[in-house]
């Protein structure tokens, strides 16, 4: 279970929300090139690390919000405010609730 920190509802199971993928800025359709538009539609950063992404609180307050998640450790933090470079840590309000010891799963067939 992944606890996703909704700004209104607090930490909720990811099953209560809808994942809307990487948060990337949409190019202006009036001025964009086909290549830029294609990259916006299909190309993904898909990093193993901090990823800025959009969630939709579909079973709760129905708010769309952006949050940063570490795709290896499943920690969350708030994306930095405009003009700032430092992300805001969220402390204990999100992340993965571990079932058993994750190291036991290594190398399973």
């Amino acid at each position, binding site marked *: 279970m992944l606890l996703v920190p909704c700004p209104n509802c607090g930490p909720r199971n*990811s099953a209560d929300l809808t*994942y809307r993928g990487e948060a990337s800025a949409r190019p202006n359709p009036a001025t964009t090139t086909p290549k830029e538009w294609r990259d916006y539609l299909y190309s993904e950063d898909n990093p193993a690390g901090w990823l800025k992404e959009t969630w939709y609180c579909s079973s709760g307050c129905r708010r769309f919000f952006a949050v940063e998640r570490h795709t290896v450790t499943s920690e969350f933090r708030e994306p930095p405010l405009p003009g700032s470079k430092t992300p805001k840590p969220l402390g204990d309000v999100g992340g993965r609730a571990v079932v058993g010891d994750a190291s036991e799963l290594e190398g399973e067939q």
Partner: protein
Amino acid sequence: MIGTNRGPRYSGAGLLWRGLRKSNWPRVWRDTPLKKSYDVVVVGGGVHGLATAYYLAANHGITNVAVLDKAYLGSGGSGRNTAIVRSNYLTPEGVAFYDRSLALYKSMSADLNLNVMFSERGHLTLAHTDSAVRTMRWRAEVNKLQNIDSSVIGPDEIKKIAPSLDTSPHTRYPILAALYHPPGGTIRHDAVVWAYARAADAYGVDLHQKTEVIDIECAGGSNPDGKGEGAKVTGVKTSKGDISARVVVNCTAGWAGLIAGMAGLKLPITTHPLQAAVTEPVKVFLPTVVVSGSLHVYVSQTDRGELVFGASVDPFATYDMGGTLDFTEELAGHVLELMPAVSKMRLLRQWAGLCDITPDYSPVMGFTPVEGFFCDVGWGTYGFKAGPVSGEQMAKCVADQATPELIAPFALSRFEHGMLVGEKGAAAVGH
């Protein structure tokens, strides 16, 4: 298997002879130091990577090849999948491709002299809604046109094939029909990895385990660091030293985006974990593979008698392979709807593997905008079935420097031209 470093041939007589003499078996593949230069470097030591290396050597005579894996061979998706093979896909491109794969799997034990325990036990895809029945009929017709044994059968016949399924009309999602595909079945996934590794090694291919790729060196690209579109691959930096190579093949499944990023490319791929689980062993009662798209579950019984379950991928992108209770709960509920009789069985363990999902559920194969950098990725949840044919075709692509017809529909450039190959209806269970 005809190679230069030929080890002992495996046979019943050989087993008896060695058993009686108590002589040790030699190592199955060599442990060689990293060379300074290779003609081809394959990144990823799973079924796809090893098959590519094997066919490069066996079909095209290119033996100065290294296979690199950051852990042990078969440690990724190749050792974590549910070992199901089939060819009853939805698009003609998909059907042709997987049918070739199935043919290679069928003759693999003989071709590579290692028993991969292919069990051709049949494959049932259940339909619980009218729209699912319609899709099954569509798939059956596409399959028949390509000479694939595939037909739609009703609940009575389903009950005859798999008596443990609840085919009564009183369930929440009654089983209306099924797509029956007799050539489908299961195979021992580790044995497939070992068979390709042993055969590739016999041709002189170097297998480097615990060798992580840190960077791919390129020159002449459009990015400031010389990577990206128009670049040429010149070498690979690994945790065990640098290699100069002009051809790098990316066969890294869940990690495909990271490896492509090292060459300055962005792929249309997100990484999602796919969870699976296995029960304690019981007597054989489930003679076929059973899949239900509506209930998001597929199940088969292993030779040891365990039930192996799989489901849909986790709905968000992550590299975290931890198991979740959500998965177990949902899985148990759905399995019990299908087979109420297994309610007393206990789950032994659950695990996850990383899947590289593309927007159209078809792979990304062949050339990329970086010269010498090839991709065999985007295999999502169905890469194991396609291992042999992908290796064969990727080897052809690398050796001939031209895209083989069979993989032409899966080129990376299809996203540029809007020629997507929609396979979600037949490739995924979670939709």
